[in-house]
């Protein structure tokens, strides 16, 4: 299980189940001891899984269950507004959780492109969020090869960029 990559769609679900089984009890115990409920534990654990997934190289982490439990613990302490001690402050986790430059994306615009540009958004998500190689992208979206996948990627970038351009004329989309 540990040798499979979390970015492979076919194994992603198995990896999440594996992480729930191994790490969620630790998170739940910690949240329960510090006054939280099951929903709190589920929330912070979900966010911890997302942070693991978004890490530059998740496969470099040897012990993913401990990593996820550590992040969830940190998130819970933050959520519960408790001061954490230096020992609990995993510097790696801290740097990942802070994204001061990330702008709030307009939910309205997101809803719009999710419908108007669904296919392109799925393809671009494969490239920029799931970090698939062009070969994997070609296989997933059934393109003839890597060159075709690359060309389609740029076409989609242009399409969504154009949608944003048009919608930016409607200022409400950007200043909700």
């Amino acid at each position, binding site marked *: 299980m540990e040798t499979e990559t979390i970015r492979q769609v076919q194994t992603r679900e198995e990896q999440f189940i594996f992480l729930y089984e191994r790490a969620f009890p630790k998170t739940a115990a910690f949240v329960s001891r510090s006054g939280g409920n099951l929903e709190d534990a589920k929330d912070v654990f979900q966010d911890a899984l997302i942070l693991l997934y978004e890490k530059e190289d998740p496969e470099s982490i040897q012990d993913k269950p401990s990593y996820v439990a550590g992040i969830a613990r940190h998130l819970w302490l933050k959520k519960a507004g408790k001061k954490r001690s230096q020992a609990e402050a995993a510097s790696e986790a801290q740097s990942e959780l802070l994204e001061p430059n990330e702008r709030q994306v307009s939910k309205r615009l*997101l809803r719009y492109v*999710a419908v108007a540009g669904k296919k392109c958004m799925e393809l671009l998500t494969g490239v920029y969020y799931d970090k698939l190689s062009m070969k994997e992208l070609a296989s997933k979206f059934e393109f003839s090869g890597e060159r075709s996948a690359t060309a389609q990627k740029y076409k989609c970038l242009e399409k969504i960029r154009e949608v944003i351009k048009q919608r930016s004329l409607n200022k409400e989309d950007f200043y909700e």
Partner: protein
Amino acid sequence: MNNTVLIESYLSGKMEPGDRLLMDARLLIDHGLRVNCEHQQQTYELVKAYGRLCLKREITAVQEHIFSVGKHESFRQKINKLFKR
């Protein structure tokens, strides 16, 4: 498409220093390029938000599966015990 590739290279920080300087200069004088650059940056942010949304849905489905399917009964009991007060 060249414009899109160029902007991607610029925004990703992978551009050679000399080309970057040239691009900085072009952005100062070329309004259209500047607008495209801003919107392309927003595209990446939007894609990240969309990807996160899809992943969250996927994780929620896994969570619901674990907390509802009989196969994980002992796991569920173990967790529920933690919250019994």
